[in-house]
């Protein structure tokens, strides 16, 4: 029985590693991989549906100040906000890409530009 494992070990000696040599080989993300949440403020209609849908309470929408706030430390990247974003806006996306490590516990605030289309 030991021969099976020995055979495997010998095969492994002459085959490519199963793991990726990460920093040298880039990671290939799939289309559906959930990553950082981004909001296209040009398209956003400040409806605050995403704020209600967020189970972690990471999002904040201020209709008066026309801002959209995300607390990256609270976000659990479940994608509930992306799915709740109304069809006429579709401003929220999740980008599966490497994001720099957050070092400060602050919220990121985005303001809707004044000259964008009115909702």
């Amino acid at each position, binding site marked *: *029985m030991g021969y099976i494992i020995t055979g495997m070990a010998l095969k492994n000696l002459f085959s490519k590693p199963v793991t990726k040599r990460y920093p040298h080989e880039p990671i290939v993300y*799939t289309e*559906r991989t*959930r990553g950082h949440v981004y909001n296209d403020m040009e398209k956003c209609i400040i409806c605050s549906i995403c704020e209600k849908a*967020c189970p*972690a309470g990471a999002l904040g929408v201020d209709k008066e100040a026309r801002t959209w706030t995300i607390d990256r430390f609270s976000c659990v990247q*479940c*994608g*509930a906000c992306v799915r709740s974003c109304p069809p006429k806006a579709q401003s929220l996306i999740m980008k599966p890409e490497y994001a720099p490590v957050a070092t400060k516990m602050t919220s990121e605030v985005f303001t809707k530009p004044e000259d964008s289309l009115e909702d």
Partner: protein
Amino acid sequence: MAERTVIPFGPHHPVLPEPIHLDLVIEDEKVVEAIPQIGFIHRGLEKLVEKRDYKSYVYITERICGICAFGHSLGYSETIEALMEIEVPPRALGLRVVWHELSRVHSHLLWLGLLADAFGFENLFMQCWRLRERVLDIFERTTGGRVILSACNVGGVNHDIADDELKGIVEVLEGMMREYKVLCKTFLKDKSVASRLRGVGILTKEEAEGFGVVGPFARASGIAEDIRMFGYGGYGFLESFEPVVSDECDGYGRCKVRADEVFQSINIIKEIVQKMPSGEVMIKVKGSPAAGSRAVMRFEQPRGECFYYAKGNGTKFLERFRIRTPTFMNVAGMAHTLQGCDLADVPLNILTIDPCISCAER
């Protein structure tokens, strides 16, 4: 008569991924009694139903445990669907079974790897986890997450899997099965593995019934009990279902049951993919659970039967939500199997029930 001493075991121990504490009463090298103590990672998730509405809570149930993440979101969703009398599209039911069985494959491969690691077979451990990686890749491709899937929701599933991709999944699993068969031979026929597992942690059928143990732990003691055989949800599409049972009653039996269940799960996925109904995968859910409505659901998680109870109060928050997880049932049986075993067998013995303390404490 030798003097009795108490050795504390855990909450931190190399074989334990999660904290459980045992007071082992030792006489010479034999364990006379094991007193378990849990409560190190209680997070009060059941209480959170009062703070999160029933649609958001599905993301919390997913985070109860990393390995049964899909199983818990499935259990919660189907309980709420029963509570609100929602009819889920049949394709969603089929897809749920595919993901649920995939998570069983990944859970059992993880456990087999941990078992191999516990008796010092490093190579086997790595081979098991190498195979498991393919299941995680399928998860990432189809749902976007490797562990926390966020795929199941009240009213259906969030993502559809195209028919071509379903066939691709079956192909991957068939390729995996060929390699897995070789590993299975090592687990079930190798002398060194058998000498470590045979006769360790014996729990007879009568004792298993008495302690009410569930899942592979019970099936390894000869109890033919698997909730999937009642055909809940998408399991109704299956022609027949026979639980995997072993009469060995020891660690080897538990290893055998789990090893065979991987084949069973792959066969279930194959059958479901063939019979996959077409149509939509999600329906819009409106309204809230009615006041005083109650629902009970039983599910077969990788570790055994899981029980869900929900009660509505007319608002979007639930009145009460309760989960009784398989490990919660199995801890008593585990403490019994420890009685009379060698001190050196204790870590392996605890591992054979596949403890998931995060689940048990919620």
